[in-house]
């Protein structure tokens, strides 16, 4: 019997752990313990003004604040019947791209890459590679900072648009930097795809936004590789949450089916053809399949997205023209939902406002909530294939698999520890 216990999963955002008991090569008990202190966002939003939702829900997460801001602003605008203009829509897409590049860079280089290089942290990786990686992340941060007024918890996104239109001259210099971003990401794809890459085959339902016009980020229908095809307003009819005793993050399931995966692999599974040409040829070069059934390949998917989104950011900066970025609106009551693709996957927000614009109820399901059950299910498939290894190695590999989902635990609770008990 092996008891494997990871008390504090490192190199992930937030506090979580894993308790694992293996008996006769089989998983006897497995719990992804999420013990992050809850912050009760859905409760503290009640009684706040409609225009505070962006600012408050940004603080759900210190990594994917842009995604929470855009999801909440879209949901509130739907309630109020606000239609933003195309300039606002594209600026929101560009700032979201900045957020995804920054978050993916943080994950791939600072959190995940040390596993592939067998190092304790990114501080010990080769200084030349580290510097390139940090520059790449800096470009994402600067896109957010220029449009948002601040890199972490930006301040310009408001109901009806933006408080200001960034000067085109400030965005222009980013184009050359984005070309460097592509180069670095392409080199890294080749580096990690040739490293000791763990194999695992799981048949999971993959859900992502999908949009015939563009690679879906801020708008789209909710689709899956198993036939789900619904609007964002129907989300709660088809996806149910349940609370489990060992986790302050609720678990999500597709009604009548099971756990599911959101994030870069799901997005590529559904929207691969909308990647940029360079991203597609890179995928071909490293033999990445659109229908990848190996969750470890999420890191390759993230890098392919960086390449494709850098291409798109260059185009968006090229076509950007300064002008009106705020539309007027009137306050009214009602309820509405919005979903966007956060770096880690679909992010769901729903609000009910009274006629004075005060929030009376809120329902938020960030991507890590949705992935929590899927991570446990993957581990159940993975652990028997590595059950002969030492307890230390099992703990290490389980951490790697959990990390591949880039869990954002603060989000999901609206930390990770791995405990393995091997019998």
């Amino acid at each position, binding site marked *: 019997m092996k008891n494997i216990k990871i008390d504090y999963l490192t190199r992930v955002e937030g506090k979580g752990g894993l308790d694992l008991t293996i008996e006769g090569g089989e998983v006897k008990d497995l719990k992804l313990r999420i013990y992050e202190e809850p912050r009760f966002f859905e409760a503290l939003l009640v009684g706040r003004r409609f225009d505070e939702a962006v600012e408050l829900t940004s603080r759900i997460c210190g990594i994917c604040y842009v995604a929470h801001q855009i999801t909440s602003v879209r949901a509130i605008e739907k309630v109020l019947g606000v239609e933003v203009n195309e300039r606002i829509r594209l600026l929101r897409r560009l700032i979201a791209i900045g957020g995804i590049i920054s978050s993916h860079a943080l994950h791939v280089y600072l959190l995940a890459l040390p596993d592939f290089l067998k190092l304790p942290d990114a501080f010990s990786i080769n200084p030349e590679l580290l510097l390139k990686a940090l520059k790449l992340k800096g470009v994402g941060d600067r896109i957010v900072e220029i449009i948002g007024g601040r890199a972490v918890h930006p301040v310009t996104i408001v109901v009806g648009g933006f408080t200001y239109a960034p000067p085109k001259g400030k965005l222009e210099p980013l184009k050359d930097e984005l070309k460097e971003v592509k180069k670095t990401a392409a080199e890294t794809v080749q580096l990690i795809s040739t490293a000791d890459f763990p194999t695992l085959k799981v048949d999971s339902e993959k859900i992502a936004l999908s949009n015939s016009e563009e690679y879906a980020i801020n708008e789209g229908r909710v689709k899956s590789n198993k036939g789900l095809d619904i609007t964002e307003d129907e989300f709660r009819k088809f996806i149910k949450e349940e609370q489990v*005793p060992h986790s302050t993050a609720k678990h999500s399931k597709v009604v009548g089916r099971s756990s599911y995966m959101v994030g870069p692999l799901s997005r590529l599974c559904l929207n691969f053809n909308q990647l940029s040409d360079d991203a597609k040829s890179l995928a071909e070069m490293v033999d990445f399949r659109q229908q990848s059934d190996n969750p470890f390949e999420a890191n390759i998917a993230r890098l392919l997205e960086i390449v494709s989104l850098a291409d798109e950011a260059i185009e968006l900066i090229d076509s950007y023209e300064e002008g009106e970025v705020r539309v007027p609106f009137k306050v009214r009551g009602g309820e509405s939902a919005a979903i966007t693709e956060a770096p880690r996957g679909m992010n769901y927000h729903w609000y009910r406002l009274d006629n004075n614009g005060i929030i009376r109820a809120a329902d938020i399901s960030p991507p890590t909530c949705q992935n929590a059950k899927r991570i446990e299910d993957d581990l159940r498939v993975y652990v028997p294939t590595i059950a002969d290894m030492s307890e230390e190695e099992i703990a290490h590999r389980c951490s790697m698999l959990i990390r591949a989902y880039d869990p954002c635990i603060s989000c999901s609770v609206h930390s990770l520890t791995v405990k393995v008990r091997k019998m």
Partner: protein
Amino acid sequence: MKLKIGVFKFTSCSGCQIELLRLNERLPELLNLVTVQNWAMASSNLQQGPYDIALVEGGISTPEAIEEVKMIRKNSKILVALGDCAVTGGIPSIRNWMKQREAESLVYPNPEYVPSTRIYAVDEYVKVDVYLKGCPPSLDNMLEVFKAAILDVRPRLRQHPVCIECKFYENECLLTTYKQPCMGPVTAAGCGAICPLVGRACEGCYGPMSNPNVKAMVEKLKEIGLSDDDIVRKFRKYAGMSEYYREVAKL
């Protein structure tokens, strides 16, 4: 001698740690001056201290966290409350005005599994040497703390309001000229007046300055048409639990 640092997270969003990582290409320079002894989000190599500087992000909201933060205090020379949640409880403290069981039942169907109490500032439980205000505190302010520790002097952190920074930029006053509910006059500086610079009133995310005139601020907000509820919401946001705001935030 390199400074030994630890970075710890309690009830928070990790945004302060992410702001520190926004050093990006300058991170290697910082690593020439400090050794990371314990930073779970960034490294699997966790050592128990002692630390020259412990950066503590997040408010304290569970019995376990109280024990942990006391242990960190014991092992640290300088303890920094990193960001509003650590300084006053921050945005998560908005729930402190609700009964805990009500907050729990609005989010969880089975609140009995939820291990949580009201959220308090780090200095409710241990002595804090440096308060880094902000949501998040700006990178420059964090670097000031490192520099001061290396030079063994007090960090120079601004005690004046955001208004002073706004004047440096020669911004028009959003409060008096445009009648927008700008919290600048009572809010600690340090951000560089980033919101007024992009056409937005200050929301007060650095919490109160040293000895703010809260009464005059409330009068001014009333004068430009804010309701009593609006005013309570303004003060019960980033720093409602602070000694200066408690009364207006109606604790």
